């Protein structure tokens, strides 16, 4: 693939990732991850103090599948719509056969009364790998500046 094709593919993946969450297509959203993926939401507070605790962590795709399954079947959470606003995607360089990618995000939640609030702002620090020309997240790590979680953390960031 040419550099331009890689760049386009990475940008598409980053955008699709957000839109699939916002459109509540979480089962299909799982396809954006490799089987050995890591999905984590980190608190900036812990990150800066070198503390290992995550806000949410899935160390493989099965744990991520279980998260979605639990959301669908087991959890009671605030009824809301998600809306991601993704900042410019920076491709920082090649790493472990993939690309290290960074982008800022804001995630708004809107309730049933049509009231919208900023739910989370932070930075994605991702590792994207290609197989047969198709990019996937080997690592998707959202570092949340909003580590004081409003209400609860249900749908993915």
């Amino acid at each position: 693939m040419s550099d331009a094709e890689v760049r386009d593919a990475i940008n598409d993946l980053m955008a699709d990732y957000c839109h699939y969450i916002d459109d509540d297509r979480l089962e299909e959203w799982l396809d954006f991850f490799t089987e050995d993926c890591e999905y984590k939401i980190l608190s900036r507070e812990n990150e800066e103090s070198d503390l290992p605790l995550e806000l949410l962590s899935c160390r493989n795709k099965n744990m991520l599948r279980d998260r979605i399954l639990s959301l669908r079947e087991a959890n009671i959470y605030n009824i809301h719509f998600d809306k991601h606003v993704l900042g410019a995607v920076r491709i920082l360089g090649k790493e472990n056969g993939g690309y290290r990618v960074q982008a800022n995000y804001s995630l708004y939640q809107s309730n049933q009364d049509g009231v919208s609030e900023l739910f989370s702002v932070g930075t994605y620090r991702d590792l994207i790998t290609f197989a047969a020309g198709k990019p996937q997240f080997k690592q998707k790590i959202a570092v949340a500046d909003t580590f004081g979680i409003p209400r609860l953390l249900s749908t993915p960031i």
Partner: protein
Amino acid sequence: MRNQPSISWPASDFSRIPFAAYCDPAVYEEEQERIFRGPTWNYLALEAELPDEGDFLSTKVGETPVVVCRDSDGVLHAFVNRCMHRGMLLCRERQGNSENFICPYHQWTYDLTGQLRAVPFPRGVNGEGGLPEDFDRGKIHLQELKVEKFKGVIFGTFSDATEPLIDYLGPEVVYEIERLFHKPIRILGYQRQRIFGNWKLYNDNVRDPNHGGLLHMFHATFGLYRLSQKGGAKLDARGRHNITWNSLGTDDEKTTSEGYEGTKKVYKPKFSLNDMSILQNRTEHPDDVTLVILSVFPNVVFQQIANSLCTRQIRSEGTDRMELYWTYYGYADDDEEMTRHRLDQANLVGPGGLISMEDGEAVELVQVAIQREQDKHAMVEIGGTGKIETQKSLVTEVPIRGFYSYYCELMGFPTGTEAAAE
């Protein structure tokens, strides 16, 4: 009492809780004085967060910002985080190490025992300005809380009338803290949850073993906690603290199915996870207790859910808001694999907890629904009415009545004053 809030506690066994207690700003104001600054021990921090001389951290007692530090002799102190000069927040950092506290406003400098040490330009310039002749620096000391610690857990109190910490906790709670902190710990990190409900609604939530197996379907389905399991709620002699406990794997299919019959999607026996490792309990104690939710009046919960250990500090922020501050830990001798297991199981609780995320929602939805119903009362009868005592079943909410029996005593609320209207 300053403008005594009018509020009715019709049942002398506290089986009715006035919704006004969760909504009335006058009640909230009174609580800051009578509960958080009253004869209670408030959880401040864990000693493992302040291992070295000069270590400090910012915390809260109710709504009061408090700084905790370890002085050059290794002694722990806690102060109201406020400069004695003009009232500015003295320490702005969440955590750190320093030889002193210097107020950013006018550079007044305090040592780690809270004593004022230096004021810039004390004699002014060329004989003009500066402090008055009779200003006695030695008499200026940060507003200090009394501090006591037990097994590395640091508590503070504003009141001289507070009984010794050990007596306040009582033998039941002392036993549980000794169990949870039976060897040195290591801090794993923090989570913060902003809950849009009254701080007491969260205290109610953790003193309600009944909801654990009903609201939290993840719990019930995967057997970490079912109402049909061996468990109960241990109260201290005064009924103000509570220990909810259970042992997983002690229920049978028949009792479970019958008990959950008619409930909607709470218990789904056929449902399974792709990665079951998150549910695994690695035995760490000689007993078979796999869950402990220990609530100490008024501001802390200690948790063991399988191998997930943490404290949850309740920080009130007005009638309808609070911060829940979660401090996760493991033991200092955990190997890398065990630490990873604890981190995996941290997914069960906290603001994003597979089990516990519902609590933030439940508290908020109660707050929303009761706002205009302040003359009415919550009904607390599960587990029985009358005597407040240790419960041998999880189908109980008696510990909530225990909380309010002590709460009303401290608040000076008369109880059993009128017949229940509902």
